[in-house]
């Protein structure tokens, strides 16, 4: 049996520890067990020194200098590390951007009247974007505009442009810098495709050139694919507004049908939300002996429906198996990304039905029901009914909902933040220039069993707000902060006096939830708006980003577009580049000269907070604002 210390070493969360104990009792293997079984990890791969790009190899470089220093093709340490890192960026950018493309397809079909159940929820945003993309809006109805705008978005994915349309949201100085470095993203798919080409054997063998293209590839995600995903989600499902909700395993309900929504794309989950409110299905639930239908989110699909609908969220990445281990989940629906292929096996120990919904994401031991814009409404109804029927198969002896939920506030889109500020960013700028708020930091990213679950996020964020630094967050980091009680206005008491005062005046928490991981672009757009208002570049602003527990290729792409946009980014775990001194030096020092921001690696969140704090004070000094040195 797992000892208490072992449980505490795995996660700081009470519900996590209790469910890990239950997992142990139920003899269910979790991500932590598999992580331990993988130890020690391969050193070559950790350092980025193994190459599998062709079968003259696979090759490895001996980091201790005794064995080979070149692959069969002649690629040295720097080339191999840069190629591997480039491919990580490409995979991350592809994931976000393909998510965006799926939303564009729904937008088109809504315009064509082929997507029953979906609608244009924010015509205002539709018209704004249409204007930005040069689509005629006067005298036309939303559906017509939607089709033309979908066309324009599809063009962004192609190769016919010199620069992505939304990259023009960046400050002029930033764009000039991208042009100078030749990293202005030209087409979303083009940059990813070109990265795969460049990293093929015998193409780009200048490590710096590969990495520069890596930045362009990441920018095609940040100012392209992800940005389209966020904007189209807002058009189709509404612009998030501040909303009260709850978080942790306690959001599952003993006397209700629990349906859990997991993944990233809100296309399926939004239809489930509708179906779960249909009167006939709710009364079916009642006749089945339960009080109602309870929806709960996980990961970023959870963030999407939390931001827009206030649907409570059960946990983040490392809690996905533990949610099933409650034995209280009638059905889990997954779309794609970050869905552990182990989930089906975990669910098999309980009564939970597992449903995969995307043609591009299928999983072992799950039932596959393919959603399309055309069938989504009806299929959602059918599946929710099945979940209701499944309630009677629940095994009471195997059920344990471990804790009471924690209250939280969500829904801080840029539009919501601006309206909280009274319609203009000026009060925020005043608070920053006046020094009440020292700066802002995006604490974002995943969970990773390398790092004690939620410890990195929560420790860093508490430190930052205590230093009067406003934290905006997305993704799994946001869920960690919410569980720790940092997303209620009362949490302002943990902030420094300046931030406390601002939060008190506006009635907001010191940690603002801006959405899912594609919604990191909301932070980019906010940063661009602030820079434009001050007539500065993003890299001049007292801001930073951090991913204290990141694990995925998507996180690599996000970190790269943040840095390329001028936001210095502190990573918890090191990316697999440490094998090359040159690449490390470029990432941590050389980029400062090129893009005005760098990467840093600091696994200890307290030290990371100190690092970020001194970075912010340095930027304040650069703007001629008062600067603390400690």
């Amino acid at each position, binding site marked *: 049996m797992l000892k208490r210390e072992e449980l505490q070493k795995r996660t700081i969360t009470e519900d996590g520890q209790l469910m890990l104990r239950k997992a142990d009792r139920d003899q269910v293997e979790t991500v932590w067990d598999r992580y331990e079984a993988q130890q020690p990890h391969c050193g070559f791969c950790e350092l980025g020194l193994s190459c599998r790009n062709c079968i003259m190899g696979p090759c490895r470089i001996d*980091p*201790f200098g*005794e064995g080979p220093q070149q692959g069969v093709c002649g690629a040295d340490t720097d080339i191999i590390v840069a190629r591997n890192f480039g491919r990580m960026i490409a995979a991350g950018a592809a994931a976000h951007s393909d998510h965006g493309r799926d939303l564009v397809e729904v937008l088109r079909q809504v315009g064509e009247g082929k997507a029953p159940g979906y609608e244009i929820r924010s015509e205002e945003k539709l018209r704004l974007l249409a204007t930005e993309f040069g689509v005629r809006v006067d005298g036309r109805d939303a559906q017509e505009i939607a089709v033309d705008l979908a066309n324009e978005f599809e063009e962004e994915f192609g190769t016919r442009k010199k620069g992505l349309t939304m990259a023009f949201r960046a400050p002029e100085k930033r764009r000039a810098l991208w042009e100078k470095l030749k990293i202005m993203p030209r087409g979303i798919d083009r940059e990813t495709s070109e990265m795969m080409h460049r990293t093929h054997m015998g193409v780009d063998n200048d490590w710096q050139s590969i990495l520069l293209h890596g930045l362009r590839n990441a920018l095609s995600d940040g100012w392209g694919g992800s940005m389209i995903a966020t904007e189209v989600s807002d058009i189709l499902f509404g612009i998030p507004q501040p909303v009260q909700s709850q978080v942790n395993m306690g959001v599952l309900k003993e006397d209700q049908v629990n349906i859990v929504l997991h993944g990233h794309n809100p296309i399926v989950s939004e239809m489930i939300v509708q179906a779960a409110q249909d009167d006939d299905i709710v009364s079916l639930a009642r006749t089945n002996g339960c009080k109602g239908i309870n929806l709960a989110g996980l990961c970023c699909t959870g963030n999407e429906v939390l931001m827009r609908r206030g649907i409570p969220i059960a946990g983040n990445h490392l809690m996905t198996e533990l949610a099933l281990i409650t034995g209280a989940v009638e059905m889990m629906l997954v779309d794609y990304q970050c869905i552990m292929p182990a989930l089906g096996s975990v669910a098999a120990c309980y009564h939970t039905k597992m449903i995969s919904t995307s043609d591009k994401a299928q999983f072992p031991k799950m039932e596959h029901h393919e959603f399309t814009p055309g069938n989504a409404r009806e299929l959602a109804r059918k599946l929710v009914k099945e979940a209701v029927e499944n309630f009677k198969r629940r095994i009471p002896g195997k059920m344990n909902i471990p804790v009471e939920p924690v209250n939280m506030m969500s829904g801080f889109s840029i539009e919501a933040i601006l309206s909280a500020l009274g319609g203009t960013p000026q009060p925020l700028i005043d608070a920053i220039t006046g020094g009440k708020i020292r700066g802002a930091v995006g604490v974002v990213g995943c969970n990773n069993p390398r790092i004690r679950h939620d410890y990195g996020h929560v420790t860093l964020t508490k430190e930052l707000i205590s230093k009067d630094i406003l934290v905006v967050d997305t993704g799994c980091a946001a869920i960690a902060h919410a569980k720790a009680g940092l997303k209620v206005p009362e949490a302002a008491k943990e902030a420094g006096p300046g931030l406390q005062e601002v939060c008190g005046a506006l009635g907001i928490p010191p940690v603002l939830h801006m959405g899912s991981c594609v919604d990191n672009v909301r932070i980019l757009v906010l940063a661009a708006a602030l820079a434009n208002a001050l007539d500065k570049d993003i890299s001049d602003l007292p801001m930073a980003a951090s991913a204290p527990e990141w694990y995925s290729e998507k996180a690599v792409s996000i970190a790269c577009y943040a840095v390329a946009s001028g936001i210095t980014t502190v990573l918890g775990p*090191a990316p697999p580049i440490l094998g090359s*001194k040159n690449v490390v030096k470029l990432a941590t020092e050389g980029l400062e000269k090129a893009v005005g921001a760098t990467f840093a690696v600091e696994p200890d969140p307290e030290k990371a907070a100190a690092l970020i704090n001194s970075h912010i004070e340095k930027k304040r000094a650069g703007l001629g604002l008062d600067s603390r040195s400690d």
Partner: protein
Amino acid sequence: MKNQPRIFVYPDRCLGCHSCELACALAHSKTKSLAAAIYEKPKPQRRLFVETGHEFRTPIHCRQCEDPPCVRACPSGALFVDPSTLLVHYREQRCISCFMCAMACPFGVIRSDTENRFIVKCDYCPELDTPACVTACPSRALRFETEAEYERGRRQLVSRLYWDQ
């Protein structure tokens, strides 16, 4: 002493990944952290080598012979068998760098130190419960077990072969 485990090699399980070599050098580094150790000067050196044989790839390292040719060849007493552990130990202070040991070793695992004119050899990682190479092997081609355990494992394999026929 017979009960003390030693490193056994299962060549049919070796995938040739070189993880043992990396772990060996790391275990003999100053910092013990991979990211830092690769930039140490002098560079940490490994004590075992993955070689490609006729059909197999296999790690080769000091067998800690009971009647070691290297010890017999050593004229200065730098190499000796520790009576409590039965391991072949090396004292650099006594070494005259004659390389008689390297010539005498049938396995070629007494190697020259890249930093000086002395030698480097496997020490079974005295600070660790299990030698680093064994822990690092992802396919269990290296195991730290007693002779009795190894022999029994072999017999069980053979007995299973009988049953299968």
